[in-house]
């Protein structure tokens, strides 16, 4: 008998876990039924051309499961395989899952961990992003909740950042980063004066979960444990958000106000001060409960859209 099996979910770091470990710890124990699993050997048809190894699930696990007794659909990207990037098969699995969600009216949990689209299958990947967004929005219009969970090594970048913005609720950890363009790309295009991608504290201060939570880019901030994600996901599904024209108008107005208020800020810390948080310097060092105690009441909240 292994020692590790006796450890509870609280000790499973979301950041460290694999896609399979995340789903196992997120849903009710043993409730997952995987669709197009590894035994189907539905691997990428493109990677071999580049001399790259494939993975049996093409870097994403999709299936149906129960969350606190409620039937849901789940997906988890594997951030260590190809940086969690979207390819043809990978993308098709998520499109299929979201279409099934609309047809069966089951809520969806997506564990993002992605750098965006795979360069080696870029056209297929970009098309997949568009199809996913369409399927996601149609599912939401049909009343389905789509909850994004972000706290992996790769963060949620590129097309992944666009998909995340369409979700009903985003749950994030401090480690989880959300953006479209990544730090290295910004530095390459705009110069190190604009964005120093080597300054890790700066990257997390700008794109990390705490800042996204404070400016309404994410809705729930949790500690880096599978148990915390599970509790937050159960909470998110029991407080549904609506997607309609009114939601979008309200969010548009909020974003315009945000730009007017913070558009000239040089650093995230200036925004935190402007939000009335004091002091701000040690904010990144605080654990989640101290952080929420100090800053939780001063954040901006989104309107079910971002």
């Amino acid at each position, binding site marked *: 008998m292994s020692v590790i*099996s006796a450890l509870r979910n609280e000790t499973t770091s979301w950041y460290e876990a*694999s896609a399979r470990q995340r789903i196992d710890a997120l849903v009710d124990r043993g409730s997952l039924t995987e669709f197009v699993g*590894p*035994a189907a050997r539905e691997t990428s048809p493109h990677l*071999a051309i580049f001399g790259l190894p494939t993975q*049996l699930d093409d870097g994403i696990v999709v299936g149906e499961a129960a969350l606190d007794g409620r039937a849901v659909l789940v997906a988890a990207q594997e951030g*260590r*395989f190809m940086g969690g990037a979207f390819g043809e098969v990978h993308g098709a699995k998520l499109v299929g899952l979201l279409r099934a969600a609309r047809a069966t009216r089951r809520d969806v949990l997506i564990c993002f961990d992605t750098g965006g689209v795979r360069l080696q299958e870029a056209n297929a990947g970009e098309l997949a992003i568009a199809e996913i967004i369409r399927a996601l929005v149609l599912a939401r219009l049909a009343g389905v909740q789509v909850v994004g969970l972000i706290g992996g090594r790769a963060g949620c970048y590129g097309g992944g950042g666009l998909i995340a913005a369409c979700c009903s609720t985003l749950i994030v950890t401090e480690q989880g980063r959300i953006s479209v363009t990544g730090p290295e790309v910004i530095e390459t295009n705009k110069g190190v004066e604009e964005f120093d991608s080597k300054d890790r504290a700066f990257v997390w201060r700008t794109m990390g979960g705490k800042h996204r939570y404070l400016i309404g880019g994410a809705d729930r901030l949790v500690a880096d444990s599978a148990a915390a994600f599970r509790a937050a996901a159960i909470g998110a599904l029991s407080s549904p958000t609506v997607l309609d024209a009114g939601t979008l108008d309200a969010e548009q107005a909020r974003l315009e106000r945000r730009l007017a208020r913070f558009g000239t800020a040089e650093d995230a810390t200036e925004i935190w001060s402007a939000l009335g948080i004091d002091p701000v310097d040690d904010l990144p060092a605080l654990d989640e409960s101290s952080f929420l105690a100090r800053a939780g009441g001063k954040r901006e909240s989104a309107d079910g859209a971002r």
Partner: protein
Amino acid sequence: MERLTFTLAAAKQAGGLRQQAIIGVVASGNLEVMLERSAPSGTCTFEIETAAHGFGAVWEAVLNDFVARRAAGGLRITINDGGARPDTVALRLAQGVRLIEGDEA
């Protein structure tokens, strides 16, 4: 990519009842190992795709030790390798056999 296949005698039958187990991810220096209970009893088959060319003899040595030390009879093992070191391969195989035995990890 280099593709390698081996069929080895494996005296000890794999324990437990799970039909399938998978462990590891394909990344630099890492690999995924999928075990399915679909080989004839007394043998263990391996289908390997590896990014590192020319290490057939090392693979054979690792796999021979594996079937000698662990209960691997009746298993069809599929490996996608991102250039893992032999010690990592040996560890994943040992973990895979423990997983298919049914220990909830």
